[in-house]
């Protein structure tokens, strides 16, 4: 088995009386794509927000290569090597496409600045098929290109772990195909990715392993084929009658 990069142990998050994530534990190994799936409201996005430091967990620990993430502010976690995209794309509207990518490179895990950052940003943009739009303002981009720019920004710090929060949501069938092959090519480069996703095709074809969440808890873990045939998972998605 390959090296563990991220180890999540007994993580719980409470918002007042609501327990959004309850005693979650899982591991993410180097070079794998790990999916977090589950019905709406099951706590997937909260889990991503906990790993990236948007919220601090109420209890539990999360270790990235031996560094504790729980309780650290988001910028420290980013510097330790966690990069993310957002469920609703967040670009920097007053900056050009290239500057958006440099924003990811300048302060994060592996820092680049000046010409080195520019060169690296351009390489990434070319790699993601954004070369022709590199100089444009972000307002001129198509929807999938905004997603690509956000991905490039996240990749620009060479993260240890990349978190994709429904990165494939809202794409049309052609774009979806392009998106899936893009994420697969990132995996083939040896990156470690955690993705939260609803698109089943993407989960089947991209994920090495999945964790299934329902009402804040882990109900299954394994390869996509295993978890998607698990009666508990089907029950969680479709309700008791269809299980």
């Amino acid at each position, binding site marked *: 088995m390959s090296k563990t990069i991220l180890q999540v142990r007994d993580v719980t998050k409470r918002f007042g009386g609501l327990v959004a994530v309850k005693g979650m534990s899982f591991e993410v190994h180097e070079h794998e794509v790990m999916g977090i799936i589950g019905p709406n409201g099951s706590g997937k996005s909260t889990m991503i927000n906990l790993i990236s*430091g948007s919220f601090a967990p109420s209890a539990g620990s999360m270790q990235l290569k031996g560094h504790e993430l729980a309780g650290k502010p988001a*910028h420290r976690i980013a510097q330790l090597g966690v990069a993310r995209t*957002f469920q609703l794309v*967040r670009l*920097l509207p*007053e900056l050009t496409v290239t500057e958006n990518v440099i*924003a990811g490179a*300048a*302060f994060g895990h592996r820092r680049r600045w000046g010409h080195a950052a520019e060169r690296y940003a351009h390489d990434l943009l070319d790699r993601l098929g954004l070369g022709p739009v590199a100089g444009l303002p972000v307002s001129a981009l198509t929807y999938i290109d905004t997603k690509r720019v956000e991905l490039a920004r996240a990749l620009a710090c060479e993260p240890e772990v990349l978190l994709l929060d429904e990165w494939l949501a809202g794409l049309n069938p052609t774009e979806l195909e392009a998106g899936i092959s893009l994420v697969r090519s990132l995996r083939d480069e040896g990156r470690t990715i955690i993705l939260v996703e609803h698109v089943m095709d993407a989960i089947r074809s991209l994920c090495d392993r999945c964790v299934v969440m329902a009402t804040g808890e882990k109900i299954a873990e394994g390869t996509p084929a295993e978890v998607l045939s698990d009666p508990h998972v089907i029950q969680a998605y479709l309700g008791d009658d269809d299980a």
Partner: protein
Amino acid sequence: MTGKDWRNLSLSAALLALAALLPIYGSPYWLTMGTTIAMFAVLATSWALFSGPTHYISLATAAFFGVGTFVTGLWFQVLPFWALPLIAAGVGAVLAGLVGLVTLRLSGVYFVIFTLGLAEMVRQVVTWVQNQTGQRGMYVLTSLTEREIYWMLLGLGALVYLAGWLIGRSRLGFALRIIGNDETVAKHSGIDTARAKVALFMIPGAVAAAAGAMLAPRYIYIEPSTAFAPLLSFQVVIMALLGGTGRLWGPVAGVIPFTLLWEAITRQAPNQTLLLMGLAFLLIVYVLPGGFVGLYDRAKRRWGGHS
């Protein structure tokens, strides 16, 4: 440095030299106008260094400026004058740092209101201390003439420009632009947003206090109600926004016409200056959202040409 940098640098140096000669070729009236313009240029440009990229509107200029005038008022008899702006800058930076630590976690309108309240609070505290000690105001009688004050302000202005140019090229400046665009993205990109904001907020604080220290002799008599007058904070904001904060030269482009207009109105109809401020504010909001800088950039885009 690129060729464009050298061109801008020599252009700035030439303009600075031209401005520095004003006391020699200009009349006393124009020297007075020049001093006022230099004062607002320094205040508005340093204000825009922080508030431009972050979009945090600070109304604390009067607080720092007033503190600076009081530094001079308290110590001009015991210390050499050149030391006073330095001390004021230190005090202003520390005060801005403290205020920043408390308030920069606030966002939007809460930050605006707090900074406005800060100036009022400092004024009240100074008034209270003066009441306790039985003082009312202070006379600042020095041998400094207006031309010396003008030259000092010009020197401070040159420093502000240099600082602004350096920050614009630095990672700190870039971090502030990212924060101004989306603070959440900034955090998740590895930027310590609180530290970056506090660090940059200290610059306008230090500059405004230093400017206050330099200008105290011009007022001759200083008391809290004039030294901390909130009008100053609003003037600075309006002038900076009128010129535009997108470029370093923007605020000055707002300061010069606004100061001249303000002066003309003060002479003709002294009670209508607030009306000018209101109209300028409406003009900025409805017609000139990016100030003169925005207008210039739009014109350049329309008629081709590259920046």
